[in-house]
């Protein structure tokens, strides 16, 4: 636990040192998204079950929840590769799985922190608040956890994380746009509704949508939980395998 907290403190110290960049990433970017797509465009577009802003706002929270882990874990792994800080962490007297857990824990914390900041912006800009806070926390926690694991898999399966970074950029675009962040699953027609079921972002965005607006169209809770559980069942062993394979012998 000491190591987990030490790494979290290190990330906070690093973010504090780059305060302006952190503020832009965590506050300004989502605020602009919410203002333009939620307040301006959302006010112009009618949507089933309420205004477009109500459909889209949980999706923006979902995007923040899934990008938080990439920024913190991805930043750590990529700078760990270029500046060799990964070697410093690997020389810490903890088992390899503790380092893995610490990175995932950091991703989880940053995903939740990002989600909380954007949820506050949604409330401030659009006046929307979650109706089911428990379901929101559960979905956001699962989302941040899944994308912490996903980030590690994508960055560590290729030989070097710079290649993984390209793969991540390539995957994130369809994950965001086909993953029901800017519209609800209900609005999708075939075959895209089948494609969306393969993307974990769909379950995260739909879970958050249900938490925000239980009366609006959204995926059933059972389907959301099944999708998140299945993704976890795939990603947990895969991330463990990728991490141990890459770092049992440190060759960067």
């Amino acid at each position: 636990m000491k190591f987990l907290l030490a790494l979290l403190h290190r990330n906070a110290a690093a973010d504090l040192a780059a305060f302006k960049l952190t503020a832009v990433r965590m506050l300004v970017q989502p605020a602009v998204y919410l203002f333009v797509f939620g307040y301006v465009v959302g006010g112009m577009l009618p949507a089933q079950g309420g205004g477009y802003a109500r459909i889209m706002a949980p999706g923006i929270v979902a995007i923040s929840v899934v990008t938080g882990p990439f920024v913190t874990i991805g930043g750590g792994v990529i700078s760990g590769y270029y500046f060799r800080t990964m070697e410093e962490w690997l020389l810490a007297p903890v088992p390899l799985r503790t380092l893995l857990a610490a990175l995932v824990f950091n991703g989880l914390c940053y995903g939740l922190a990002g989600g909380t900041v954007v949820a506050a912006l949604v409330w401030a800009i659009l006046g929307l608040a979650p109706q089911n806070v428990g379901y929101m926390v559960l979905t956001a926690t699962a989302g941040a956890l899944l994308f912490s694991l996903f980030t590690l898999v994508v960055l560590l399966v290729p030989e070097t994380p710079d290649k993984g970074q390209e793969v991540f950029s390539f995957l994130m675009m369809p994950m965001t746009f086909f993953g029901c962040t800017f519209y609800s699953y209900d609005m999708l027609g075939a075959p895209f509704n089948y494609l969306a079921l393969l993307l974990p972002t769909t379950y995260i965005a739909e879970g958050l949508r249900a938490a925000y607006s239980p009366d609006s169209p959204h995926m059933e809770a059972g389907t959301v939980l099944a999708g998140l559980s299945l993704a976890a069942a795939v990603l947990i062993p895969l991330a463990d395998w990728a991490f141990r394979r890459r770092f049992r012998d440190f060759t960067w």
Partner: protein
Amino acid sequence: MAAVLVDHATVVYPSGVKAVEGLSMCVRHGEIFGLLGLNGAGKTSAIKMLATLLRPTAGRVRILGLDTMERPAEIKRRIGVVPQENNLDTYLDVRQNLAFHCRYAGLAKKDYTPRVEEWLALLGLEGKATESVLRLSGGTKRKAMLAKAFLTEPELLILDEPTAGLDPDVRALLWDKVGEFRRNGGTVFLSTHYLEEAERLCDRIGILHGGRLVAEGTVADLARWAGRDASERGGVEAAFRRAVGGCS
């Protein structure tokens, strides 16, 4: 009990490159052991293996009586490592780098804070303590790396080219601290390119060539192996030239 015991260890990289082949050596407690070799001889791979960053593909390595495959975390708690390349955290300043190094090792703030300040003062880094490491010179970064290795009060220091890029006065300071560390019962395993430095400081020296240990012994042993009088200076250089077959 040996501080470092390597038994027929081989390291083969996934690419198929054999970096270390059948390496066997023993470093006794309280000894300074120097590993010499040309670039690509396998020194860094051997050092990574001792630091538990690389697993031997074959053979066994025991550090402070512990097997590197079985108890790497416990070994890392008891060693201090200066890798060949700087691994300072570029997002942090110098003081934070030293402090977080101690925190990763599980030290409490009340224990590490005075040590960090002491090492900052010792290496003349007080004025640079709040500077980002990105703005430091190569020599200053190296000083911070050296401080990290000593901070956790290890029993064994593993130093890969520790004096590369350092000014003569900082080199002298380093060797002074290494000497003090040894007098207090510590063991040192180092690799260096400076043959004269190895001859002057090391109790025993090994020469690695093509991943194999081709000569090993005291300075006098190596001089005799090279056909020189053991009392003459330059015996290590002569042994080195013989070991690498004139490649230097």
